[in-house]
């Protein structure tokens, strides 16, 4: 009834190429953003901010990064955890070496450093494809974690191998990093940063560079024959993707956990992010957010439900059951909707467009 594009005529190609060509979408997203920015920090309980919203935003960013590489450019990667670790440790070294630098610049540099590492480990993609490449990215995963674990230089020789993010402020004196910052400030900072980066990602995928990624993904031979340089397209996808993942790793260390060790970015982290984009939807910016929300909320729901039902289960059993349910849900999801939540969202919108009339 309310979701109609009838009557909205476009008179220029620019208007037709806008991010949200349908007016209702544009209004909806603005309301959502306004609500998240102006209302949530005041009404959400601390627990929500710390354990749901902040990790959700950070994971969304990581998923966005992996989605660029895997969903848009078609290069399967299992090295996400390693690249997140890069971002975390690079930013730690930078922030402690240059205490007066603005933290945003630190994150930017850490992201760029990670992009460089990503390009390095992306080089095999020029010769190998598919699962062979996936295994090659495992080399990045294991090597990077080993490196951060082995050489105490990365942790400023901390005896426990744990790095503690120093407090840093933005906009003058608002602390946004380390455990001492207020959750509200961290949340708003993350929301703005992640939204901005998501906008950039969206712009990229609807510009020239995004089209060259998708062309490589869909049919690499045809892409090369219409003039796309596979090397440039693949390596730029690795760079941009690693940049996003690196920044998310930095944010993980600086805002979410405050102190972190290399083992926090193990292979399981890579799988977690991969699940997000599969469940959310490959090749959909929206999907990265939906998938991140799903994976962040699922364990919380799994922990809460037995409590609510009053089942007396041991912690260990719950952990194992969680594995089973997690695995089963993923299989279920893949069977029911292999294109992810983003596709469901799309179908929902198409239905809504017609509702309440069937045609």
């Amino acid at each position, binding site marked *: 009834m309310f979701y109609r594009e009838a009557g909205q005529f476009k008179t220029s190609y620019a208007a037709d190429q806008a991010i949200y060509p349908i007016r209702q979408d544009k209004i909806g997203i603005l309301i959502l953003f306004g609500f998240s920015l102006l209302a949530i920090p005041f009404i959400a309980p601390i627990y929500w901010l710390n354990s749901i919203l902040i990790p959700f935003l950070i994971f969304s960013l990581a998923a966005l990064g992996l989605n660029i590489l895997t969903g848009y450019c078609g290069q399967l990667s299992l090295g996400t955890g390693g690249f997140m670790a890069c971002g975390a440790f690079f930013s730690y070294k930078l922030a402690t070496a240059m205490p007066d630098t603005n933290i945003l610049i630190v994150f930017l540099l850490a992201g760029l450093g990670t992009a460089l590492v990503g390009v390095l480990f992306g080089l095999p993609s020029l010769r190998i494809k598919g699962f062979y490449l996936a295994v090659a990215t495992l080399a990045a995963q294991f090597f990077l974690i080993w490196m951060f674990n082995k050489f105490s230089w990365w942790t400023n020789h901390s005896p426990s191998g744990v790095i503690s993010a120093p407090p840093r402020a933005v906009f003058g004196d608002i602390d946004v990093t380390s455990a001492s910052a207020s959750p509200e400030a961290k949340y708003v900072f993350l929301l703005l940063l992640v939204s901005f980066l998501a906008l950039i990602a969206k712009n990229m995928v*609807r510009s020239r560079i995004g089209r060259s990624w998708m062309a490589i993904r869909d049919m690499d031979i045809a892409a090369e024959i219409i003039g796309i340089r596979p090397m440039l397209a693949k390596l730029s996808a690795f760079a941009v993707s690693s940049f996003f993942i690196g920044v998310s790793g930095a944010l993980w260390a600086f805002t979410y956990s405050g102190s972190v060790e290399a083992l926090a970015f193990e292979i399981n982290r890579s799988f977690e992010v991969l699940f997000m984009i599969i469940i959310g939807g490959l090749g959909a910016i929206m999907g990265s957010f939906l998938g991140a929300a799903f994976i962040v909320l699922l364990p919380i729901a799994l922990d809460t439900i037995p409590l609510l039902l009053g089942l007396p289960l041991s912690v260990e059993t719950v952990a194992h059951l969680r594995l089973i349910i997690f695995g089963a849900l993923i299989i279920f999801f893949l069977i029911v909707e292999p294109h992810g939540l983003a596709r469901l969202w799309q179908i929902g919108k198409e239905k809504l467009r017609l509702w309440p009339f069937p045609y």
Partner: protein
Amino acid sequence: MNDISSQIPAEAAGTRQPERRFGEPLLTVENISLSFGGLQALTDISFDILEQEIRAIIGPNGAGKTSMLNVINGFYHPQKGTITYKGNIRRTMRPHMAAAQGIARTFQNVALFKGMSTLDNIMTGRLLKMHNLRAPETGVFGLDQVLRWGAGALDFVTQCLYWGPNEKEETRQRAYCEEIVDFLEIQAIRKTPVGRLPYGLQKRVELARALAMEPELLLLDEPMAGMNVEEKEDMSRFILDVNEEFGTTVALIEHDMGVVMDISDRVVVLDYGRKLADGRPDEVRSDRGVIDAYLGVAH
């Protein structure tokens, strides 16, 4: 060579003139041999393609036609022989370099970007023509390269922000693509994901993508395979129109002899990787070797 003219009956060729003049050779292949391990795919092939002509390559299955196209656009590298394109002998190159020199191509099995819409597919064909920013040419050694990198970086930033030059360029190129959309009569499907389109339309979108490259030489690999009579007529009309209106040189592989005889100016016949005949359609049609190859008379 300039006086070769086609002998196609006017009614089959639509609006084209029965007498046409062609330009200089656009592409000349000489003594090309290509093998994969022990398998000899092409042996000592020579022919040329003149500017503005429609050149057909025919032959039985496995004759090496597609391999020939692959050699022309740099996908395969022949072991022997030379290719001269626009008067320059070509060195070994990658397909994207061929694309930059104006060679476009469609495929035997449709090779569209399945995850993208029709319009995005065509826009992807414009990639080489899109420049948000251009570096000024100073002529100073070294400085030009630096400027080009700088422009590339700035270009990337404008793409990230979808702002200013990028938006203008996208709109400008969109307008060009819409012209092709109109030309090929695919307005209704411009936002449909190409995976959902029927086969005949997919072939048409693929042609649109190739045209978006503004090619000088258009290679078509079985543009009419699997089509019904009407679709074939449409496609023939499009090919002739492209040739006529844009002056694009066309080299096509086709199995439908009726179509080949009707629309092509000259035909080269391959069999078992060797050249069997070369000439005007009527000459080729009456060639003894060609008839043997097609009807399977013992060699």
